[in-house]
Structure formats: structure tokens, C-alpha cells
């Protein structure tokens, strides 16, 4: 089977002796929407840097759609579109110049690139700004520009390194819809993000990197199934006293908020029964944190 991305025993030791990757093995299937998570400094950006030729590896092997990056580098590069974490375009070039030039580096003729620029800049709502220098754009527009630029050569594998960092909620949701559509149309997407809600909403499979090692590589569904407990917050009508709840770990956070740990197979009916019996009215209920976030913290703490 040919994978969109196949990484074998990838190691990276920086010149200062820092061991960033300690033998990563990773396979991303064609058409997948894959999340690569990990705390800061875990090795996510180093992995992406090596896959996109921005960082030299120490050892190991990377294949993109079957093209070995050691022996078929140019073919491998042709398959990849990268949206980096930091803005890396010339601030003095216009929006259209940036995307057209980039397409040229992938062998797209100028005529074709101009046509595609209209398509992708319109898609990201930047067509009106095509003659504006990039430095004049807002942060959100700059991020959209980087996505348009990465799509100009119509890559089979799109890699996004924290694409929604610093983007407001409305725009983030627009970008999610756009990326979902792109994935539905066949583009394999690999995403690193700090917004775990983003990974849970978009991705089918997930890998967690911790201290240069892949500690999880599974489907989002089976990862979330590992979650044994969920913490819920109940906003209750204050009685000033801590309710007695049998069978549940609970804690009164303040006069009106109760934190309760609910086991996976435990259910919440019994919890509500007990509260009703004690005459406590529940006003609202919410998760303490995102489910994935809880699991992520648990997994990374375990291996710390």
C-alpha cells in the first residue's frame, strides 16, 4: 500500500546536541485528515521541517506518496503543500505576485498560475486585495494568503503547521469548513495544532509526539475511547453546603459550581437522581475541558 506519508525511524540531533526526534515511525494514509499533537518542543515542527526539506534529518527515511526523499526528492516535493507556522512571504510583494511566483517554482506556467490565483484568492476572500502588498494585510488575511499559496500547485498532501494560531473564532470556523471541503475532495491533510478542539472536529486519525517520540498513533475514535473519566461542571442553585454524592468524585468549586468526575460506564442519571433527592436544582452543565484535551494532558503527563 502506498501511503501519503511514510516515516521510518526518523532521528534528528541538532548541532548543539539536542535530540529532537528519537526514532519516529509514522504512516498517514492517502485521503486522511491527520492531527499531529504534542506539547511545545516535542518535535512536531522538526518532523514537519524534515518532511518539507526545511530541516536536515540525522537519520531515517521519509517517503511521500511512495517517493523516497533521499532518491526522488523533486517528485516528493511536488506532492507537498506547506502552510508554515510563521509568515514567510516577502512583505513587499503583492498578494497575487506571491501566489503566482510560488506556483512558478512548481512548474505551473504564468498563464495557468494567474488563472489559479483568481480561483484560490477568491476562495480565501483575498481577490480584492490581489494588488496590495502583503505587509498591509491583517493577521487573518496573511494566514489565508499562506493557505492559498500552498494550494497553487494543487498538492496531494497539504501540511498545516498551526494554521489557526492567532486567528479569531469566526475565521477559524471558516477555515475548518474550507479544510474539510478540501479533504473531502481528496487532498490528504496533516495538521499540527494547539487547539485540541480543532483536531477533534477535523481529524480522523491522530498522532501524539512527546519528547521526540510518537507515543500515540491511532484513530480519533479509539483514542477518545481510552478516556476513562470525564469531568463535568454543574452550575447549581446555591445552598451554601456541599451536596453528598455517593459513587462520584466531586468537589464544590465555588458556591454555585460543582465539579464531578464521571466514569465512562457510570452515566449521569444516578448523579442527577441524588441531586434531585437532596433538593438541589441544576441550572446548567458543561465539560470542564475538551475531552481530547483531558486525554492529551493525561498521556503527556504519563510519559513526562
Amino acid at each position, binding site marked *: 500500500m502506498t501511503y501519503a506519508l511514510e516515516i521510518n525511524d526518523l532521528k534528528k540531533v541538532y548541532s548543539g546536541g539536542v535530540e529532537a526526534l528519537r526514532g519516529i515511525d509514522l504512516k498517514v494514509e492517502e485521503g486522511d485528515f491527520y492531527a499531529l499533537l504534542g506539547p511545545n518542543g516535542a518535535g512536531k515542527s522538526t518532523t514537519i521541517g524534515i518532511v518539507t*526539506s*526545511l530541516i536536515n534529518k540525522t537519520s531515517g527515511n521519509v517517503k511521500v506518496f511512495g517517493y523516497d526523499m533521499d532518491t526522488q526528492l*523533486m517528485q516528493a516535493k511536488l506532492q507537498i503543500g506547506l502552510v508554515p507556522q510563521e509568515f*514567510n512571504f516577502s512583505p513587499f*510583494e503583492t498578494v497575487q505576485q506571491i501566489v503566482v*511566483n510560488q506556483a*512558478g517554482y*512548481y512548474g505551473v506556467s*504564468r498563464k495557468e498560475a494567474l488563472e489559479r490565483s483568481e480561483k484560490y484568492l477568491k476562495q480565501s476572500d483575498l481577490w480584492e486585495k490581489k494588488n496590495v502588498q502583503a505587509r498591509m494585510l491583517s493577521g487573518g488575511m496573511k494566514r489565508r494568503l499562506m493557505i492559498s499559496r500552498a494550494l497553487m500547485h494543487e498538492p496531494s498532501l497539504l501540511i498545516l503547521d498551526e494554521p489557526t494560531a492567532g486567528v479569531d473564532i469566526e475565521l477559524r470556523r471558516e477555515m475548518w469548513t474550507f479544510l474539510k471541503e478540501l479533504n473531502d475532495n481528496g487532498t490528504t491533510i496533516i495538521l499540527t495544532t494547539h487547539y485540541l478542539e480543532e483536531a477533534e472536529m477535523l481529524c480522523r486519525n491522530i498522532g501524539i509526539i512527546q519528547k521526540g517520540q510518537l507515543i500515540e498513533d491511532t484513530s480519533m475514535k479509539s483514542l477518545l475511547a481510552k478516556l476513562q473519566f470525564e469531568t463535568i461542571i454543574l452550575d447549581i442553585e446555591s445552598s451554601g453546603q456541599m451536596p453528598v454524592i455517593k459513587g462520584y468524585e466531586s468537589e464544590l468549586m465555588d458556591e454555585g459550581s460543582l465539579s464531578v468526575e464521571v466514569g465512562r460506564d457510570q452515566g449521569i442519571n444516578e448523579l442527577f437522581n441524588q441531586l434531585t433527592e437532596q433538593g438541589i436544582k441544576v441550572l446548567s452543565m458543561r465539560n470542564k475541558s475538551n475531552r481530547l484535551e483531558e486525554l492529551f494532558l493525561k498521556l503527556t503527563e504519563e510519559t513526562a
Partner: protein
Amino acid sequence: MFKLYLTALKGLAVKETNRYLRIWIQTLVPPVITTSLYFIIFGNLIGKRIGEMGGFSYMEFIVPGLIMMSVITSSYSNVSSSFFSQKFQKNIEELLVAPVPTHIIIWGFVIGGLGRSTLVGILVTIISLLFVPLQVYSWSIVILTFLMTSILFSLAGLLNGIFARSFDDVSIVPTFVLQPLTYLGGVFFSISMLPPFWQIVSQFNPIVYMISGFRFGILGVIDVPILFSVLISIIFVISLYALNWYLIEKGRGLRS
């Protein structure tokens, strides 16, 4: 793949050309003003008192040297500052992630240097025509020495851009190395006028060969045999090209 590389080269060359044309007030105007002042002060005012040199008026003698001086500075600074700026702004990554071979990257930047130095060379030549009529001894030698010089100093500028870590590093070499070598390379005098010891020292200055060759193409007078000048230029071009290729390929200053 050849078609892809050709499109990439065209794209990079257009980008580089747009860059120096966009900031023409910084890239094209200063050499024109500087050389005009040289023509007025050294050629016209002081030159009249110097008399002939190599059988030509002093003004005629310095014209090829001044054109070459502008070509050297323009090609060098165009490539060094463009490459370093792209490194500094990180947009060099646009090239590094793309299927663009190192040879194409080198030639893309060299074409930028070549284009700017050609424009500057033409502008300085037009200015010189206001002061002195120009007759060309050999067009082929003029074109050959111009091309070799421009390519050589574009490659030297690229090397500077690769090693540079700050904007200071980009300006240090032109100020402390390039400018002295150019002034001592025979722009304003014939190398044969120097004492024997300094004539030997001058043989280690590559700019002597460029200016001598270009002056031969225009005036037909020469300090160093033309074949030797061309040979030295070729050796420098090949060495610098190989060094740049090796450093970019290894990712020196580009990839960690």
C-alpha cells in the same frame, strides 16, 4: 522535469527583476549619480591636468574602469542583499520547499545580478557619452568581460548572502574588501604605473583582470594579456559556483 525547472527559473528571475525595479531609487539611481561625480571631478576637472594615459585622454581612460566599477558593485550588492533579505524574512523557504534544484536557485539570483548590472552599466555608459565620445575596439571582448565580471560578482554576492547573519555582514564585505580592491584594481590608473612590488601584489587582485580586459575591449590598451584575464575570470566563476552549490546543497545558514 526540464520544463518544470525552466518555469521555476523564469519565475525566480522575474521575482528578482521585479525586486530591483521596485526599488529603482536605491538600486539604479545611486551608481549613476556617483559615476557622474567621478566623471566631473576626476575626468573633467582633475583629468585635464593629468594629460594622456596609454595614449588616451584621462577621461577616456577612466570610462571603462568606472563602468566596470558600477557593474561589480551592482551585481554583488544585488545578490547579497536579495539573498540575505529572503533569508531574514524567511521567504527563502518558498524556494527550499519547492522542487527547485540548487542550480536553478543559483542561476535565478545570478540573472537578477546580471540584469541590474546591465541596466546600471548602460546608464553609466550613457552618462559617460555626455563627457567623452566612446569607440569600441572589440564588441565581443566587451560583452565577454562584462558577462564574466557580472556573473563572478553575482556569485561572490551570493556567497556573502549565504554566510551573512545580519545586515552588517552584507555591508562589511563591499565596504572593506570590494571597494578597496576596485579602487586598487586600475579604475583610475594603469597597473604599469605602479612600482614593481605593487605590480606583483596587484596580480592577486581579481578585479585587475576584469578592468584590464574590459578596457582592452573598449580602448584596445591592456595591462594584462586578454586570454589570461578571461582565464582568471573563468577559474573564479567555476570556483565560486561550485562553492555556492555545495553550501546551498548542504543548507549552510538555510537548514538546521
